[in-house]
């Protein structure tokens, strides 16, 4: 038989302050841990939602981001003729051959950061249906005009409706603000691809080509074409969604690993705190433990009681820390994405996996913090425990 649960619970009441501080310590660690995972997951989710599952993005194999990829004009023309490319009602390929460059803009709160400027082709609206203009109008093809993602509008100076943005020595006018509901495109600036190529003297060499698949089931066929056609050997097709998801990998893992290392270090503090609390809890009750043992309670019942006590502290900390982290779900962060070397805004995103990971983390803290004190309680010699006062 085990020690009654009410005994464990009521002992908390008699030590409200120390128990409260210990719970707080654990909840802080849980909060930081959850926040880091939410951030890492937020980046992944943002970039994953950027791409569509039925679009294909072509980039140079050796490139690790869009800006370092180059696709020459004749290759673009060849890709346009592939049968796997979807056509619109006017029999035009739904394809955007995009030069991607990086410019600097001033952050409203001070400092500079990199911004992705994407030149897009006529069918960009057909290709990326998630785009919505929330202010102004679309840019005019043939003019030095831009539309700006809402995250850029929020964070940067001189990127508002009517602003003039300096690109390659020329001033471009912001004529519209667009939203893609929190995808990575919200952190980009878009204009006419040809105007951009012209401004940068790039001839007709774009960075990447994105097109809609005529038939998703033909994707494998397309991959075969890129493996066998001599002119396409240096290029690689990827589902757009997967392309962007992979772009999140480095940043997402970086935050996850760094954050986990930091929280594990923090957790030592919380575990030592829990351990001190539990040792004190045992020390205060030596005679009670001796009495219960004399009455016939077994060592393992005592061990279980103290482990339970420690686990309850940990789980209370987990609940509190998790509730606190819910406040983050409405927050957005904008920072430099190491993969694209440009600004990316993303949210904190919670998932069941994260909640379970933080629970496991809290339980581990409870077990590690409570184990030695519980063992000490269980190993007490009855006679000497009864002599204690």
């Amino acid at each position: 038989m085990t020690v009654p649960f009410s005994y464990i619970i009521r002992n908390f009441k008699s030590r409200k302050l120390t128990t409260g501080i210990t719970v707080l310590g654990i909840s802080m660690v849980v909060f930081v841990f959850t926040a880091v995972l939410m951030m890492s997951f937020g980046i992944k989710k943002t970039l994953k939602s950027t791409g569509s599952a039925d679009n294909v993005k072509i980039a140079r194999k050796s490139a690790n981001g869009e800006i370092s990829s180059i696709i020459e004009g004749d290759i673009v023309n060849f890709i346009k003729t592939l049968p796997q490319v979807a056509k619109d009602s006017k029999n035009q390929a739904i394809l955007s051959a995009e030069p991607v460059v990086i410019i600097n803009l001033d952050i409203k709160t001070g400092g500079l950061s990199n911004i992705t400027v994407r030149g897009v082709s006529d069918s960009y609206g057909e290709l990326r249906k998630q785009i919505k203009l929330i202010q102004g109008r679309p840019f005019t093809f043939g003019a030095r005009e831009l539309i700006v993602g809402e995250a850029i509008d929020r964070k940067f100076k001189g990127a508002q409706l009517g602003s003039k943005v300096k690109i390659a020595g020329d001033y471009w006018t912001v004529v519209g603000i667009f939203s893609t509901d929190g995808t990575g495109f919200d952190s980009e600036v878009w204009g006419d691809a040809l105007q951009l190529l012209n401004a940068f003297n790039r001839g007709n060499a774009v960075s990447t080509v994105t097109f809609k698949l005529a038939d998703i089931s033909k994707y494998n066929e397309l991959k075969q074409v890129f493996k066998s056609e001599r002119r396409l050997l240096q290029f690689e097709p990827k589902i757009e969604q997967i392309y962007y998801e992979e772009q999140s990998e480095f940043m997402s893992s970086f935050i996850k690993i760094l954050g986990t290392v930091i929280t594990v270090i923090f957790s030592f503090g919380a575990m030592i705190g829990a351990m001190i609390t539990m040792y004190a809890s045992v020390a205060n009750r030596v005679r009670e433990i001796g009495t219960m043992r004399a009455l016939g309670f077994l060592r393992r019942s005592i061990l279980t009681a103290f482990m339970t006590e420690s686990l309850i502290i940990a789980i209370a900390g987990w609940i509190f820390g998790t509730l606190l982290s819910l406040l983050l779900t409405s927050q957005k962060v904008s920072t430099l994405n190491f993969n694209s070397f440009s600004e990316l805004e993303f949210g904190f995103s919670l998932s069941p996996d994260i909640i379970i990971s933080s629970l496991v983390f809290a339980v581990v803290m409870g077990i590690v913090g409570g184990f030695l004190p519980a063992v000490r309680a269980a190993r007490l010699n009855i006679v000497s425990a009864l002599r204690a006062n």
Partner: protein
Amino acid sequence: MEKIIISIENVSKEYKRDSLSISVLNNITFDVQEGDFLALMGPSGSGKTTLLNLIAGIDQPTVGKIIINGNDIAKLSATSLAKWRSENVGFIFQFYNLIPVLTAFENVELPLLLTKLSKSERKKRVELALSIVGLGDRMDHYPKQLSGGQEQRVAIARAVVTDPAIIVADEPTGDLDKNSAAEVLTLLDRLNKEMKKTIIMVTHDPSAASKAHIIKHLEKGDLV
């Protein structure tokens, strides 16, 4: 025909401190009849508590046998000894040793949690035990809401609630005023007479010892 319930045979107890070994009990031999009320007296440090602990099965002799109801309890494993204690021994301590966060009812119920009794059977037993000690109206009180004498009576209820054959009491009146002490002694006397409990009581107080049938004196670990 009287029956021997406790038989102490050539029991010695030594404590080792560093390389020094202190002899606390020297070759003690005596029997206790079922239903006896035995008082152990002697100066401080003479080994009374140690002897009581051996009989109660919470300590082990260095040499010798402690045979209770025919079995040598020194041979039991820790787990079986714990079970044996919960069924056969009731404990009364000088400082009551109630659990402060549990009510009088819950304190008395504690040893019953080690039995297979149902909740309602436990309730019946606890209420009976508390009414025997005259605290039927204090069941929901916490120890700190009770006087010392009342606490000790709750402890007595806890000691008898499992209906053990033997009750060990280590200076049960040592921390009480005269009136409370008298109440406690009267209760012990009733447990002995009416409920036929075998009682072993350590005490310094001659008037407490006078309630017992037999008084044994210990002196530096020897029975005198």
